[in-house]
């Protein structure tokens, strides 16, 4: 019981943020009298029945961000900094995914059709390997050469998309390609006969994998120890360089999976824009999840909730028909409110306010007794 209470305590901030957003929508529904935001309906077409509605769409569209946020949390905890190149590395991973899936390597193909399962699996594997290699490049700069993560990852941040374009152009002669195939549809949207979006299963799978890794290894303890006090960790036999590299490897896997989820759900891969400015959203998710961006203790659950919070915000603004131009402005306002509400200063206010209320009620009770 106590354990549950403790972990809830640490997740208060993202839970409250998400709750307030949902409550806001509830009020909006009552005021407007239209419950479209909370409606979940079954849409049926020739490909079968599919659940639709804003809530489903939030969970579906957040998937790539959720997966990415998990990897970002690990790197943040171990290195005390963030990888800002994840969007660009995602584009590289996506490029390799498509190249490997391509059945016949003809030049100039603007649409990818008729892929086979073995190629898809090859594509996934190669995409993961590519992303891990590029993330390891960052990792070596950060862990071995001790360069500030922000600067080390700035390199791929600025040139990663060019690398992705180079590979895709060399292989297929295009910088952007449409993905139109039943298998890709099954990965990116829904499997025929299953009413739930596939990406939700992918998130569950990645989450389970993470859970298993934490359960079966000392990754959490090592990562936190290195993030909090590297010297002490080292004197206890932990190799900080390896732990940091490992966090980048895990991030690489997450980046590749996120890139595959994102490109298949968009049914298109554009090296210039795939996962554009995702790095900032991923860092934001880690922050909303009440994780210290300076490294050390971390909670994956917080980052996951943070990612869903960001997507809920986007979907809410969409539902309110805010134009995409002014969207970023409203998003910024809400995020400032969330971050200020979760800041130590405000938290202390709330705690001392709570204490005051307790004191006054106790005083009142004492008076009553007298």
């Amino acid at each position, binding site marked *: 019981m106590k354990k549950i209470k403790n972990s809830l305590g640490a997740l208060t901030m993202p839970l409250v943020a998400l709750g307030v957003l949902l409550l806001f929508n509830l009020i909006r529904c009552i005021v407007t009298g239209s419950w479209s935001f909370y409606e979940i309906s079954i849409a049926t077409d020739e490909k079968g029945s599919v659940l639709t509605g804003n809530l489903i769409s939030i969970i579906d569209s957040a998937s790539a961000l959720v997966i990415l946020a998990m990897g970002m949390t690990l790197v943040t905890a171990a290195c005390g900094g963030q990888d800002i190149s994840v969007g660009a590395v995602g584009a590289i991973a996506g490029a390799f995914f498509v190249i490997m899936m391509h059945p016949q390597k003809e030049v100039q193909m603007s649409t990818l059709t008729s892929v086979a399962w073995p190629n898809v699996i090859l594509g996934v594997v190669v995409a993961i390997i590519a992303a891990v290699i590029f993330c390891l490049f960052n990792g070596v700069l950060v862990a071995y050469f001790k360069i500030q993560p922000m600067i080390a990852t700035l390199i791929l941040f600025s040139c990663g998309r060019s690398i992705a374009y180079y590979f895709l152009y060399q292989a297929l002669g295009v910088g952007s390609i449409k993905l139109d195939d039943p298998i890709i549809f099954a990965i990116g949207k829904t499997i025929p006969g299953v009413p739930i979006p596939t990406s939700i299963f992918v998130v569950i799978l990645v989450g389970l994998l993470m859970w298993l890794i934490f*359960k079966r290894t*000392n990754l959490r303890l090592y990562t936190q120890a290195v993030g909090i006090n590297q010297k002490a960790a080292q*004197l206890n036999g932990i190799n900080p360089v390896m732990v940091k590299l490992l966090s980048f490897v895990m991030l690489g896997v997450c980046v590749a999976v996120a890139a595959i989820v994102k490109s298949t759900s968009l049914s298109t891969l554009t090296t210039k824009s795939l996962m554009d400015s995702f790095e900032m959203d991923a860092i934001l998710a880690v922050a909303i999840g009440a994780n210290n961006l300076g490294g050390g203790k971390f909670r994956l659950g917080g980052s996951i909730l943070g990612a869903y919070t960001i997507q809920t915000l986007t979907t809410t603004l969409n539902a309110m028909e805010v134009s995409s131009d002014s969207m970023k402005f409203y998003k910024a306002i809400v995020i400032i409110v969330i971050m200020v509400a979760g800041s130590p200063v405000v938290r202390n206010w709330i705690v001392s306010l709570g204490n005051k209320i307790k004191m006054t009620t106790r005083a009142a009770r004492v008076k009553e007794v007298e």
Partner: protein
Amino acid sequence: MPNMENQAVLTMRGICKQFPGTKALNNVDFTLRKGEIHALMGENGAGKSTLIKVLTGVYGKDAGSIWVDGTEGEARIHSPQDAQNIGISTVYQEITLCPNLSVAENMFIGRTKGPFVNWWSRNKRTTEILESLNIPARARQELSQCSLAVQQMVAIARAVDMNCKVLILDEPTSSLDEHEVEMLFGLMRDLRDRGVGIIFVTHFLEQVYAVSDRITVLRNGELVGEWPVAELPQVELVARMMGKDLDDMVDLDAVGEKSVGSDETVYEAVGLSSTECKPFDFQIHKGEVNGFTGLLGSGRSESVRAIFGADRVTGGMVMVKGQHAVINKPYRAMKKGIGYLPEDRKRDGIVADLSVRENIILALQVMKGFFHPMSRDEMEAFADEYIKALQIKTASQETPIGSLSGGNQQKVILARWLLTHPDYLILDEPTRGIDVGTKLEIQRLVLKLAEEGMSVTFISSEIEEMLRTCSRLIVMRDRNIVGELTGDQLTQGQIMRTIAGGEQ
């Protein structure tokens, strides 16, 4: 009502402070008179720091009153700024000045009124103060170029210049050598003669008697009493701090039988060297307690770090239990049954944000390997066992170690290594900055472990401690081993002579 007997400059009455789970201060009185050096004594966790923090406005008090000379009515202290404004200044153990600024800039930092600064007059004023207090520093000198002692004295000068009536010195001497301590004491006496009331918090009993006029003892958050120094002999002070009768204290000097160990060599190094130390030979027998001694910086810590593989090992041959071993990183040393408690607890020992439980199991868990995490029950059982065995004072296993007192943090690190059941345990300054009671506990523990067959290397800046526990002392000077003392040679005089050299 303010108490003005003997010109009290500070009067605290009935101070209470409650923390979740513990009563840190219970109805404590404290009186500081004009022009006296008043030692505030107590074991770790006795409430010294809490009392100081209440006085300086870091913590709010739950009950009680504070009067300060020159302020009408009760003093309202809600922040360190308030405390400073009514004349209470603190100089902490760690220097809190800016090392990259000049001495004069440090003297005046944070005291600017208006946007303009007259550096010429400030430098002049600084020079005056430094001269009047006999502090060997120049106004334009960068602070980091001064020795630690001088930096501390600059911090004090800064406080004095802000017209402080109450000067709090919290463990000011813990990183100073003997000569520097004497310099600091000179300054303290000088200030006392000018009428400043000084609260002196320290762990060094001899220093209390060297400089203080009066002693207040706290124990478990309660006031034990206040005595003029002459009326409280050192042994009695220790007894009061530990809350024991004098009879219990007889064995203060004899902690136990020293352990020479058996003939079996547990660890042997020939020509071992690292990037930080010169080649040296060393061996230790099963069940032996030995020590490295020498002045700070003589290379004793660097030598044991080389044994543990904490620095990059550059050469030498190592035998563990008669077999060749390559120890070039801590993990290898741990696998060979060696444990190492580092000198700087905060920097190298504790993982501050992690819980007591995680800190205890850390080394054992690493030895078990990355893919073999212990179950939660197992960890809790281990943590529980050692919290009890070493009497670690903590609210729970899940309390972050950073919030424990220094002595208890040290016990947690000790527990961490005992849990790995090492054959050879290296303790570098295990008693630094912790109270007398815990010091004795640790010394007794070392002897008990040796009796059970563990080999221990014990390093301490306090020679008495090493004489009490070690059966063999290796003396170092300028990063070289200059002597080895055993049996009758183990006297302070002989150690001093060996350190000073010249008998050849």
